[in-house]
């Protein structure tokens, strides 16, 4: 009884890809909440905004509307969708990960499959937002001069650039969400406390350093000189770091309750 | 099936009882191991062990690809074996209990003669 049963190892490259794709499929099995619901919420916000724009227009005229339109850019009406996707990524790691492991998935395949989905979803939502952004511009703010699908700093005339910017911002939120979820899976609420405390200290520290060295001007300059696309590309640095950190964390994680 | 005694021994005894009672006549097919397992809600390997016990004893025999059959003469063999055990299994405990109650062997014998089997007419 010293021999152990060996199963045929069929670990070809195509096989591995199939496993990763299967994890990706698992993530989008419950389609509605992932692919449809965000647009519905956006639609409700949009309808509410339309009503407000109409009120402003009737009450105060076109001039007031164009001023209000500028203000709208800062309202971040559409930015909830980014936060929504971060929550999606947190849940993917927190809830889908233990489920996938029960189905015999490796952590590596899970992470690669999840990443595939994050990239795909980023493209999907970036495409949608770019389209709405284009319609908004083409119709002069839905005929009312309203601006909802334009994020103040990141607005651009070039559709491809616009898409790329949205895409990179989505990627950032997905992978930061995945890394955060991994911290939670590894160390639960204690990990969260330490994580957010550390993040808070880091941000306050950075702000303090910038203030003390009187470098806020330089920071502003950096944003101007890099331009929206440049900044979005720089966002890849924290995105990639989060992705790598998330992978390292999850590789040693055990789902617990 | 009761707990506390090997299940496969109990299964073998039950099959023997069925052969004794005529429920499983000689040269008829007995249920498969899996059928025994499902019926008694026991592990198929355990059921297999019980059946094999009877195969080894020559009570049952295998027909390749068909199944398990009751061997000719197996009823007589079971009767013979059970008779050999009758004293240990039934008479001795009976006498132990009788002694506790102060009944002599003669009194027990008399009781046996006058007692009619439940449900029988003699």
């Amino acid at each position: 009884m010293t021999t152990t049963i060996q199963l045929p190892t069929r670990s070809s490259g195509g096989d591995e890809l199939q496993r990763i794709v299967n994890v990706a499929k698992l993530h989008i099995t419950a389609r509605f909440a992932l692919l449809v619901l965000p647009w519905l919420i956006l639609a409700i916000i949009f309808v509410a905004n339309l009503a407000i724009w109409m009120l402003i227009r009737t009450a105060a005229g076109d001039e007031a509307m164009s001023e209000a339109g500028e203000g709208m850019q800062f309202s971040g009406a559409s930015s909830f969708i980014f936060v929504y996707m971060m929550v999606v990524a947190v849940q993917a790691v927190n809830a889908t990960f233990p489920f996938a492991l029960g189905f015999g998935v490796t952590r590596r395949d899970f992470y690669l499959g999840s990443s595939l989905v994050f990239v795909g979803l980023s493209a999907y939502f970036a495409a949608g937002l770019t389209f709405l952004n284009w319609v908004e511009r083409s119709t002069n703010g839905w005929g009312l001069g309203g601006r909802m699908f334009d994020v103040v700093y990141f607005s651009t005339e070039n559709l491809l650039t616009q898409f790329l910017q949205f895409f990179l911002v989505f990627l950032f939120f997905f992978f930061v969400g995945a890394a955060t979820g991994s911290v939670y899976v590894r160390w639960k609420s204690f990990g969260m406390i330490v994580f957010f405390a550390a993040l808070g200290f880091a941000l306050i520290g950075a702000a303090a350093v910038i203030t003390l060295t009187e470098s806020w001007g330089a920071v502003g300059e950096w944003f101007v000189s890099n331009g929206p696309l440049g900044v979005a590309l720089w966002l890849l640095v924290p995105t990639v770091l989060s992705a790598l950190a998330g992978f390292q964390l999850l590789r040693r994680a055990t789902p617990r309750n | 099936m009761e707990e506390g005694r090997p299940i496969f021994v109990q299964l073998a005894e039950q099959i023997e009882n069925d052969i004794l009672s005529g429920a499983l006549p000689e040269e008829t097919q007995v249920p498969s191991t899996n059928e025994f397992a499902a019926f008694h809600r026991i592990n198929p390997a355990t059921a297999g062990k019980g059946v094999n016990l009877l195969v080894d004893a020559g009570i049952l025999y295998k027909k390749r690809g068909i199944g398990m059959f009751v061997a000719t003469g197996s009823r007589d063999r079971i009767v013979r074996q059970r008779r050999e055990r009758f004293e240990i299994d039934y008479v001795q405990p009976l006498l132990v209990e009788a002694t506790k109650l102060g009944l002599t062997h003669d009194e027990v014998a008399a009781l046996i003669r006058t007692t009619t089997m439940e449900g029988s007419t003699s």
Partner: protein
Amino acid sequence: MSPVVQVSGLSKHFGSVRAVEDASFSLEQNKITGLLGRNGAGKSTLMNLLTGQEFATRGDIKVFGASPVENASVLRNICFIKESQRYPEDFYVKHVFKSAPWFFENWDAEFAEQLIDEFRLPTARRIKKLSRGQLSAVGIIVGLASRAPLTFFDEPYLGLDAVARQLFYDRLLEDYSEHPRTVVLSTHLIDEVSMLLEHVLLIDDGRIVIDEDAETLRNTATTVVGTRSAVEAFVAGREILHRDGIGGLASVTIGGLDDSERAAASAAGLELTPVSLQQLIIRKTGTTTREFEQSA
């Protein structure tokens, strides 16, 4: 038969807690093994280790000849049904059965359908809205219909009534008969499942204390009841598993007896009562029946 799982010197410590301590055993192919033990004895940790979900502190695990940790060619043959399984957010029951075939190549959709009917599982309901018993049924159906060569059930029946539990046992036996595979069933309802088991692993306080064929185990203990003096005379020199008594009566559990010993016992006016697997395990783990049954 060859082993599917081989474990040697396996330990898992959480800080100062020794959840699994120096465990060595193997699981043979196509057997149903009962992993028994009290709550917190280390059953779940052991299964987490065998399925590569937990990382060992020490020792060696071979599943299908290799370490299960991050090993896709091993893990693809494993299905692990946990008592407290988490499901993806927003999952409906139907999503579980839609996605399962992507991960289990032996998945039998027809069988799954049959079980969904039999367990009366509402497939159009959100997982979060299911009752405890319905949630258990989801796990049981996945575990059975996946037909994974190595299937783990960790206390899979919480919240299921007696009828549904019997249904699980019946379907497990039937399907196992037709499609033999290696099954590990962790449970504290020993009386209910003992007849399904071919092999028994008993874990107590992180250590494997019994690793034995279930049928052999059934023969390993007898309780001798009678007057104190007669019982004591009979059990003198034997290993005593448990001792109980009231007034002049004694009840002592000892190892198995052969025919002549049984005859001697009855000649001495002693009564012999069989010891069930559950009683035996309670004796071995030094608990009372009530404690054991409550350790769910």
